[in-house]
């Protein structure tokens, strides 16, 4: 019995350490399916998840690891072109909290996603677009 408890504690500590080491908005377990739904509802009016399909905003296919203002064929604001930010879970999380707070002058007028869990889900879905 005590061995099982010790085993559980060790496993929990290991998982906790791994969670600390992993990058990204990790306070919530990300749900890709929920993120896809949130993307369709909140982002899909301006952004496509398909490669090469720009709408009011640029395609978000391959967004993770990409630099701001770099999708071919999309007319970016000078603010986005000159931001020189690489999209990672962390930078995306900050951006989605308030796009214009992070990149003043961006054409993206969305007020932001306040719910950390929803942001995490969207980011998890965006990471699958590759």
């Amino acid at each position, binding site marked *: 019995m005590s061995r099982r408890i010790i085993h559980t504690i060790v496993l929990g500590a290991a998982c906790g350490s791994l969670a600390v080491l992993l990058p990204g908005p990790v306070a919530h377990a990300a749900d890709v399916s929920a993120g896809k739904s949130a993307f*369709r*509802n*909140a*982002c*899909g*009016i*301006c952004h*496509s998840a*398909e490669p*090469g*399909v720009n*709408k*009011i905003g640029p395609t978000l296919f391959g967004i993770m690891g990409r630099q701001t203002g770099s999708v071919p064929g999309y*007319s970016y*604001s000078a603010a986005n072109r000159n931001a020189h930010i690489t999209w990672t879970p962390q930078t995306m999380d900050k951006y989605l909290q308030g796009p*214009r707070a992070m990149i003043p*002058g961006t*054409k993206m*007028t*969305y*007020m*932001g*996603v*306040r*719910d950390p869990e*929803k942001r995490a889900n969207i980011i998890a879905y965006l990471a699958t677009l590759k």
Partner: protein
Amino acid sequence: MARRIRFVLWLLLPLAGVALATRPAEAIPAFAAQTGQACTDCHVGGFGPELTPLGRAFKIGGYTQRGGEGWASYVPLSLMIQTSFTNTASDQNPPPQHYAPNNNFSLDQISGFIGGGIGEHTGGLMQFTWTDVDNTAHVDNMDLRPYTTTFNLGGKELRIGTTLNNAPTVQDPYNSTFVWGFPFIASAIAPTPVGNPILAGGFTGNAIGYTIYAWWNNALYLEGGAYSTFSPWLLARFGNDYGIGSTTSPAPYLRAAYEWQWGESAAWIGTIFMHADVDPPTGIPYQTTGALGTDHYTDYAFDAGYQLLNHGPHSVTVQGIFTHENQNLKGTAGLTGVASTGANLNQFRANVSYWYKNTYGFTVGWQKTWGPANAALYAVAGVPSANDKPDNNAVIIEADWVPFGKDSSLWAPFMNLKLGVQYTAYTQFNGGTSNYDGLGTRANDNNTLLLFAWLIF
């Protein structure tokens, strides 16, 4: 008989004028709460109804976008109040019913809205309005989107959708057209010219439109459908009446537009076609007749616009529409006892707006209508046109202040306010410049100063 009909038409004309002059808003905070967007994101000047590219996408998308958070994002209700002060260059004779000959304060509209999306494919907007000007309530703008969805076509997105609406162009995404065109507000008390194409109000609130639309690559917009007038029973319950008459067959409506977006600019060109065969109204509420013939109207409209929206301090928009209408008015000619049945009408509307920080706006608009003498429509008693012509020419200047509507505004996104002053100067009115009614009245006697407050939450 004909004399009695003329008299009833004379009595009804001021009401028709009120209906045409009163323009409601579409910028409802329920949409802002649902989408998580500030008013400025979807509306030029941070206040409806003029749409930005994102606003157009939201409307074409069936009002279904949902990015807002919290319980308020699921409450599809808004309330709007319009109140104003109207001064005309000369006293009105006779004075507007319930009002003084000049310098009137009025509660123009209190409107309730139900608007928003249900799931990913269905949404809509319905407006119910009560006006103190004539103390009536009615179903105002209705734009329902029963179903819309997207496909991939040629590597680009194709959106297909359906609409049920109650006025031609109420469903249109471009503010160069009629229902949501400039001026966005007008005095409900001041006289307005009578000559207008049917697209500009002939079926507003008295018909059901059923259309299908396609939007490809955020650029090509195609729409087709038809309009049929409501039954007298429905009209009575909706608080509206027939405009140019009751349709004898579905009136076809076609719309095409193409939009370019580059940098911080957007531009579009478009065209509208509509044809209607109607039995004209007899002058008795909810009654039309084809006993003496049917009226036929065919409208061809061409519109265009440009927007510079940099979400910085400066925004500029330019838009215009030209409409040519062919008329064959056998029914109305028979009812009014005149011989001529054929005529046409031309109208041009344009406006230029500048906004500073989506807060301070200045707009200049121009409206010109012209056409040959038309005894069937403009010779009837009560239509003050001595030469039976529809000609009018007006310049409208408006200055606005929108202190709210931004994402950092007080109570955003649940409240918005526009305060404005508008001046309309006429150089032609109902066919003439001076003595246009045969009673010595000049066109510029109708010049109108409007001070207004427009609150929505």
